[in-house]
Every structure is written in C-alpha cells, then in structure tokens.
C-alpha cells in the first residue's frame, strides 16, 4: 500500500475499489480483471477470496449444465425478529434483492466434468452465509435429489454459522441437514464437503464436517467457536495458524487441501475413482 501514498505527485491511476482488488490477507493491489482471471486468488500471497454461489457453481459445473432446484424455498421469518436496528424480514428481503438469490445456498443438478452430481454452493454475501430455515430445506432437498438420482452430492460451504434471527429454528437446521446427509451416505452414495472461507459455528458443526471426504481451500478459516470467545475463556493468545485449513489438516479433520484452480479436476478424479463414474 505504501508505494501509493508516498508518491502523491506521480500521475496515478487511482486505485479505487472499482478497478483494483485489495487483498485482505497481504494488502496487495491486483487489477480487478487480472484478479478475476486468477479465480479471485491473490497472485502475491495465494489467499483465496470469496466467491459468490453463482461464481462457485460456474467454477465447478460444466457450462450450461446447472439446473437449480428448490429455488422457491426462500428465507422465512418464523420469530418475527427485530433487533435494535431493523426487522429481519426487511433485511433478508433487501439481501435477496441485492444478491439475486433466495437463500444463503444455491443447489441444483449439474454435470461436473460430465459426471452427474447434485451441487450446492453457499454465498457469504447472503446474511454471512448463515444457516436459515430456507438454507436447511434447500440442503435437505439437494440430498434427497441426490438419493433419487443416485449421484454424488457436493456442497461448498461459506458461512459464519447459524442464523440467530431465526432462533432455534436455525439451530435445528444443523440436525436436519445432518439427518438428510446421513440417509444419503447410508445408501452408499458419496457426499463431498468443500469448505471455503469461512466455515464456522453451526455450519462447521453440521453438514460441513460429515463428508465422506472433507476438502478445503487453502488458508480457509474453519472452526467452531470464535477466536475472541476462546481467547477470553482460556485467557491466552491463540497461534495465528489456529483454525486454518492447514491447522485442521494437521489435526486430522480434513482429507485434503485443494487450490481453487485444481478443485474441479480433483473432484472429478476422486468421484470417478470412488464411484467408477464415466
């Protein structure tokens, strides 16, 4: 960042948000088009930026193959929840409008390198990717569709956890999604969880962690409790690598860390190996 502020007299292309991506990890400026061409991975430090659900689906599904299911399942407001600032129903309606999606996950059928799969991708822009009742229902329908079609289920997570504006209804989505996935797995079908930044709280403690394979992108934040809560509780500083995908791999909770550029090929290869799909 410093090079720019130190040279005010130079004729500059102003690095505005519109033209440049500023890496959240290392601060490097990358032209937006170059950043997009690099799949939103910082060319300097390799940090994997967040993809929207649609971008994630475009990354993994064969062109034109994705057919959304459960699109009519949208966020609900079972508690008529208001906080100090706003009503949840209004916030969620605005979020729908802004993101163009009805819930924090988009699910559908697709082919992945010609293999039929059910694919889901969470979108952190939608209420922090939180697990609402609509999210849970969409995941359940995705799992039941995979069961019907006898094909693998791939879910890409990006979530801060439960959605507190839906109270206990949100918490129960953890049980609901795990139950749906367990049925799928009991029928000999493959479920692959792909954890992307961030995967925390109630999502990490439910469908994200029960994959036949648990995969994550590099340097992804994955964990149950928040760093600050833990530091307050145990009264000690946590190491910087704590709750990264590298930390989880080392502790035995991930099968593999796969870089974004390799993700589609890796999934295709592994699904083919396990299921002998053509």
């Amino acid at each position: 960042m410093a090079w720019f502020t130190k040279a005010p007299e130079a004729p500059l292309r102003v690095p505005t948000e519109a033209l440049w991506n500023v890496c959240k990890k290392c601060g490097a400026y990358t032209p937006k088009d170059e950043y997009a061409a690099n799949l939103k991975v910082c060319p300097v430090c390799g940090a994997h930026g967040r993809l929207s659900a649609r971008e994630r689906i475009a990354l993994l599904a064969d062109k034109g193959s994705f057919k959304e299911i459960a699109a009519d399942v949208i966020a609900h407001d079972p508690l008529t929840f208001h906080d100090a600032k706003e009503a949840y129903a209004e916030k969620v309606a605005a979020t729908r409008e802004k993101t163009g999606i009805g819930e924090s996950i988009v699910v559908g059928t697709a082919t992945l390198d010609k293999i039929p799969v059910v694919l889901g991708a969470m979108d952190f822009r939608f209420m922090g990717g939180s697990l609402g009742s609509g999210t849970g229902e969409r995941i359940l329908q995705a799992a039941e569709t995979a069961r019907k079609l006898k094909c693998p289920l791939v879910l890409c997570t990006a979530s801060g956890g439960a959605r507190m504006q839906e109270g206990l209804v949100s918490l129960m989505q953890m049980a609901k999604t795990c139950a749906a996935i367990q049925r799928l797995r009991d029928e000999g079908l493959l479920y692959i969880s792909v954890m992307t930044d961030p995967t925390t709280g109630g999502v990490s403690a439910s469908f994200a962690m029960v994959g036949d394979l648990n995969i994550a992108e590099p340097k992804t934040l994955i964990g149950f409790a928040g760093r600050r809560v833990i530091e307050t509780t145990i009264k000690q500083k946590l190491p910087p690598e704590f709750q990264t995908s590298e930390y989880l791999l080392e502790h035995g909770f991930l099968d593999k860390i796969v870089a974004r550029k390799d993700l589609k090929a890796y999934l295709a290869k592994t699904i083919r190996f396990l299921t002998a799909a053509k």
Partner: protein
Amino acid sequence: MATTKKPVAKKPAAKAPAKKPAAKPAAKKPAAKATAKKPAAKPAAAKKATAHTTWDTVQIARHPNRPLLIDYLAAWDPQANELHGDRLVADDPAMFAGLVNIGGERVVLVGHRKGRTTEEKIAYRFGMANPDGYRKAMRIMRLAEKFHLPIVTLVDTSGAFPGLDAEARGQAEAIAKNLADMSVLKAPIVVVVTGEGGSGGALGIAVGDRILMLEHAIYSVISPEGCASILWRDGHMAPQAAEALKLTSDWLKKLGLIDEIIPEPKGGAQNAPAKTIEDVKQAILKAIRELKKIPVEKLVEQRYAKFAAMGRFSD
C-alpha cells in the same frame, strides 16, 4: 409481516408464528416502518399481564438451586452405573454417560453435568463439554442400540466448551457426527431440556423422538448475551435479545420444535426440586412407554420426518 412486536410471554399470540413468511422480495420500502417496529422496551401492559418476563425465565433456568443432572441421578438411581471415556483421548467429566434405572426402566442416560460447589463447577467445566464428551456420549448411546434399551438425554449447558484443545480435537466434527449418528440410531431417544439448552453444545445430544422441556428451561441458538453483543452491539441488551429469540418453552412448542412442556412448581423448579425431579421422571417414563410400542425402523423414519419438517414453511 406483523406490524407490532408480539410480547413473548406465558401466552404467545394465538396466530402460529411459524407460518409467517418473510416479506416478499417486492416489499421494499421499509425505512419508516422499521423504526416503528423497534422493540424498545417491553410494553408495560404486557408486563402486567404476565407473571414474569422472558429475562426472568432465563434467570430461573440458570438459578443456582435449580435441579442439576447430579440431583436427578441421585434421586432416580443412586446406584447409577457411570461409564467413562471416549476410547480415543479422554474422559470428559462435563458429560455424564451411564446405565441408569429410572422407575424400573433400564435406560442409557447421557447428559451435561454441571456442578453445585465451586470445586465441582470447575471440575465439570461448568457443564461445557469437550469433543471427548460428545464422543463418549455417542459411544455409550451405541450400547443402547445394541442391547435394545431406550436412551434418555438431559440437556443443560450454556454451550460446548470454547477452548484451544476443544478445537484441536474437533469440537465441530464431534457435534456434527452426533447429529448424523443420532438421526439414524436404532433406539428410542427421549430428550429433556432441563435447564439451559445452549446452541450446538445442547443439540449435540438432543436429536430424538420426543423432545421434552421443563417449563422454565431455555433453548436457544445463541445466548441472549451473545446475541445482544452482536445484534445490539451491547451485551447489556440481553433481556431484549432473550425476548426476540423466543427461547422459552411455550414459543418453542408453538414453533413445533419441542413436543411437550413439563410444568414447574410456582416460581420455578428451585422452589420444589423434589417435585420437579419426580415430574421429569414421570414424563420420561410416559414417553418411553409410548415409544416402545413403535417398531424401531418406523421410529427412525418418524424421527427423520420430524426434523425434516422443522423450519419447513408452505406459502
């Protein structure tokens, strides 16, 4: 959207809150209305009309003299056969697991263990379990499946323990695994929320066929304090957050998330612990008797349908 905030109290408004869809995408001029809906203070009228506020319920659920797992066990079965360890790394004292005789009924019982004395509280980590606790609970629940015994779980925790070791040993994975495994466990499961049902740490042993809840227990996705500090940016707004979260038994019954409320003595269980302990026992026995009549395959099917229906809304 309702335009007024419903007071959360002993008697929720007649209209089932669960059936209410969020505002349609088209409805998009909320600014003025939003301020009108601001749930500032509880209306004085509502306060008068009810015995106590949601915040009072939170206090009762956390009352120091409220019966704990150790009290239930001492009364039901002083000879309870506690079983230890997750067979992986540790035995977590914050989670009890064992073979218990409740009124002549042999059951596998698991539950969060809080302490009463300071020493106990520290030893039991204030009822906040580590991954080892959830894995132990699952291991012992498997015995119920194998030997055709019912499972009873007693839920009373502020949450799973937020610690370095807990994360390193996979708190998230341990809870997730229990949710998946309990959903297909071939044994009747009766869950009783006796005190605090604190988020994922509670749910980790709370997937079952009958979810019972003591009248003044609470069950929530997040603590009122945590919710207040995030959404109100002020932990002192916990009473408001508690109300907004609808974490009381009457609301949760209405939302279809619990099956049955076990009434408490006037003012709360701490006023007559022995009676509460007996009432919980009778409620458990009744639930077990009902569940035993259902073939176990059908029970598992019904359990799936029950959880699948949670948070499903038809427009």
